[in-house]
């Protein structure tokens, strides 16, 4: 089924074009989005059997520079990222319909258009066959998400957009591009090669410099102190925060981190070096600090954003430890965190749509009004914390195994501490929602008609999406074995 590979990029682009054509008929337009998402997911799924069998479907698009092609090549990690991004796009599209209509958002055609293009770029990142191709799609993803971040067009949105673009573009052009050109200069290739391409090509001291050019060049991975763009991006409509800034964009970042460590450096080259220890230290610090900041945020989306910063560093830490189990755990965490976090964002958006609440301190008793939403929230939260029977527990397990394998036991402690911290910033929300009484009717406004205990959930489309993603979070606990099998080749040099 290799012939479907180019379609994984083309389908969302065609969809984007059709969305423009259907701009005067909202129902048709949303149908196009859903069908496109479904078609994309199916075409990505069709590649899976071949990859599981050890195949690497590939395609040279065209030669862009002498000796350097724009090319796609599907390997296990990209397969997983592609599946997650395209699968969740379907769910997210359902959710978008409910959210965008429920909040009567402006310029919805532009919204759906750039969403589709962003997905094409995300898939491009997932399936890129060399670093140059990945870099191109990475930059396109940055640019296409900018109009989504600044969707509302308010002064605040423009300001956040500036932070967003400023950090992402300056890190990628300032550091990542230099790193890539350096790699090309030293190794003479940029192809993703199992075992890496840099061994023996760059002296030991400079390897560390190059490693940091990459790690801080990949701004989307949100390593501190270049994480500021992610909270800034929360000004976007919630579906954007959910799919792009919990899944596609941020995962493109940590995905690139893993790709670089595994296929450019090679885990043997990184493992145990001073630079990798320093990187691991920074990732561990990011992971803890971001959790602490999350605890202090009253705005629900901001709290979730810092939680994402923290969770992304789980993966960077896994990459920095650079053992077989740690990179597999990192890869797995891409899927686990994606489902957990998108559920949480869906819930945040549903609360906003139904009751226009954005602050954690306003959520007293909300569980009684929105039981389905808040139960899903519990599921997502448990997964982020890393408790069974949710998916997040297993990726964390692998990451810790990896740390043990690399004999860097301190990081096991870091992860355990982080779990405690995530209990501290997520569980108060659950407690408030279910165990605190509802505020008096007048302070809730519209809710008064429903009376005590009246159920007021978000629009149906939102609710369906929430249930699906929560169910997915749960199901991943049982699918972790399959994912591990898919990712197993990563551990082999």
């Amino acid at each position, binding site marked *: 089924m290799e012939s479907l590979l180019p379609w994984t990029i083309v389908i969302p682009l065609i969809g984007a074009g059709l969305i423009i054509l259907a701009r005067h008929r909202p129902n048709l337009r949303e149908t196009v989005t859903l069908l496109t998402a479904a078609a994309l997911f199916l075409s990505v799924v069709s590649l899976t059997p071949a990859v599981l069998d050890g195949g690497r479907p590939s395609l040279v698009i*065209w030669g*862009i*520079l*002498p000796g350097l092609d*724009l090319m796609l090549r599907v390997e296990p990690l990209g397969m997983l990222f592609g599946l997650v991004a395209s699968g969740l796009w379907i769910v997210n599209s359902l959710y978008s319909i409910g959210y965008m209509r429920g909040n009567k958002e402006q310029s919805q055609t532009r919204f759906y258009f750039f969403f589709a293009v962003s997905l094409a770029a995300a898939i491009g990142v997932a399936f890129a066959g060399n670093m*140059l191709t990945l*870099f*191109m799609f990475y*930059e*396109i993803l940055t*640019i296409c998400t900018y109009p989504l971040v*600044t969707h509302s*067009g308010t002064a605040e949105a*423009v300001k956040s957009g*500036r932070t967003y*673009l*400023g950090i992402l*573009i*300056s890190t990628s*052009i*300032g*550091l990542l*591009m*230099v790193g890539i*050109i*350096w790699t*090309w*200069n030293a190794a003479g290739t940029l192809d993703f090669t199992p075992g890496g391409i840099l061994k023996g090509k760059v002296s030991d001291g400079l390897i560390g410099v190059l490693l940091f050019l990459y790690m801080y060049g990949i701004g989307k991975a949100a390593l501190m102190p270049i994480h500021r763009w992610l909270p800034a991006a929360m000004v976007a409509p919630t579906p954007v925060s959910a799919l792009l800034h919990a899944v596609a964009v941020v995962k493109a970042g940590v995905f690139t981190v893993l790709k670089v460590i595994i296929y450019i450096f090679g885990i043997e080259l990184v493992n145990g070096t001073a630079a990798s220890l320093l990187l691991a230290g920074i990732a561990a610090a990011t992971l803890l600090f971001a959790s602490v900041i999350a605890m202090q945020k009253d705005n629900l989306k901001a709290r979730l954003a810092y939680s994402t910063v923290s969770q992304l560093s789980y993966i960077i830490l896994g990459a920095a430890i650079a053992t077989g189990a740690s990179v597999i755990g990192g890869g797995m965490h891409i899927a686990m965190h994606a489902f957990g976090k998108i559920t949480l964002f869906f819930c945040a958006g549903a609360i906003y749509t139904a009751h226009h609440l954005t602050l954690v301190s306003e959520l007293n008793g909300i569980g009684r009004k929105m039981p389905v939403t808040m139960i899903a929230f519990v599921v997502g939260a448990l997964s982020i914390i890393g408790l069974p029977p949710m998916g997040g527990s297993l990726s964390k397990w692998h990451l810790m195994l990896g740390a043990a394998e690399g004999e860097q036991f301190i990081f096991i402690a870091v992860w355990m501490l982080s779990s405690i911290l995530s209990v501290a910033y997520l569980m108060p929300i659950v407690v408030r929602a279910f165990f605190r009484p509802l505020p008096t009717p007048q302070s809730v406004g519209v809710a008064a008609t429903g009376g005590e205990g009246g159920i007021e959930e978000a629009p149906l489309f939102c609710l369906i999406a929430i249930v699906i993603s929560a169910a997915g979070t749960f199901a991943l606990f049982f699918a972790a074995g399959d994912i591990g099998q898919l990712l197993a080749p990563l551990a082999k040099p």
Partner: protein
Amino acid sequence: MIAEHFPVLVVILPLVTAPICVMLRHGGRAWLLATIVTWASFALAIALLRQVMDTGAISYLLGDWAAPWGIEYRIDQLSAFIILIVTAIGSVMMVFAPKSVTAEIPGDRVYLFYTMYLLTFAGLLGMAATGDAFNLFVFLEISSLSTYVLISLGKERRALTAAYRYLVLGTLGATFYIIGVGMMYQMTGTLNMADLAVRLPAVAETKTILVAVGFLTVGIGLKMGLFPLHLWLPNAYTYAPSVVTAFLAATATKVAVYVLLRIYYTFFGAGIFEGLPVSNLLLALGIIAALGMSAVAIFQDNAKRLLAYSSVAQLGYIVIGISLVTATGAMASILHLFNHALIKGSLFLVLACVFYRIGSTKVDDMAGLGKSMPFTMAAFVLAGFSLIGIPLTTGFISKWFLINAALEKGWWIVAVVVVAATLMAVIYFWKVIEAVYFRPRPDGALVVTEVPALMLVPLWVLAGANIYFGTNTNLSVGTARRAAEILLGGGG
């Protein structure tokens, strides 16, 4: 065979058409003639480039007089590439011109505009085609004098002072150049470039030649707006008619860079860089230009002036590439000549469209145009991405090779400079973008609509070329590489 006369035809054709335009005394007809001639030159340029790539350099003896006595026209890969850039930009600009020119230049002078345009065009082509150092001076003056007139045709009265300033500095530059040529003639007894290349090494150590190098560098540096000799440029670009700015920004400075490359690599050979601190000087100037002028650009409130400073900064990149004295470095510079012509050509054409609609290029006046002129502004975004160097655009290809060349030589600082200047480019470019897309039209401002198709199509041809040559680099990279190899291989 007419084909063997192509090297001279490409220059002569616009040169003799210019006076005919004067005789026509009619704007519309002059435009038609100029358009036909520029496109014919473009066709000739394509034919020349193909021929040169197939069979190597072409030598054409004017009037069949043998070289040291007669004037030789010599087209190699580099000159053919430059001729292609000039004719391509020149002919696209002609399609774009009529509406914009009618709006900005009084009706009774329009035919003069086309006359001067053709003269500038011919002068630039002559500089690229000739193989004779003195003949180059003649064409330099033809292009310069006609450029002064073109700039003075600008709508505001300040165009006159801008033109005058350029006239003073430009004349100074041309004089310096001819003094340098005179000194070389004194030492070698020849003006033919190929002969110079043979005879100069023997006298390269003499003081006269060292002084000549200084005069030539400063003279041409003035013409190309090399920092700190760029003082004429921002005003000239700001107050010239919009089409003129676009044309000059995309071609004139590029041809001057070509001349500089010729002087260093063909006249003197790469050996010049060993004896003299030219390389370090160029590197220093290039770095200051790239950083300093990008910083200055950030604080401009007129988009035209902003882009003018950006041009001086971009020229810094080109000079840095030359200063590396490697084949990759020269190649990066030559490649950026081409790519930057596409980038700045598109950006200034956008401003021409803006000026056509709102009569201003102030960033504040451009607020809210994203909605009313969507296609024009989309071209601006695209070309701006190319300026920054986002992948899939020509600007990225330029940066790629320039940084590559710097790393190859181990000059880390250059990579850092390029990156820093790029980040500043993001800032000044985004300043315009935010005004255009996120600010409402000012109160009481004109309600404007998209420009006519006759302007949009040429604009998008140039803007689209940024993507085309950013993804298909066979022509640009291939030619630039051959040209650089020949410069560094055959020159010394």
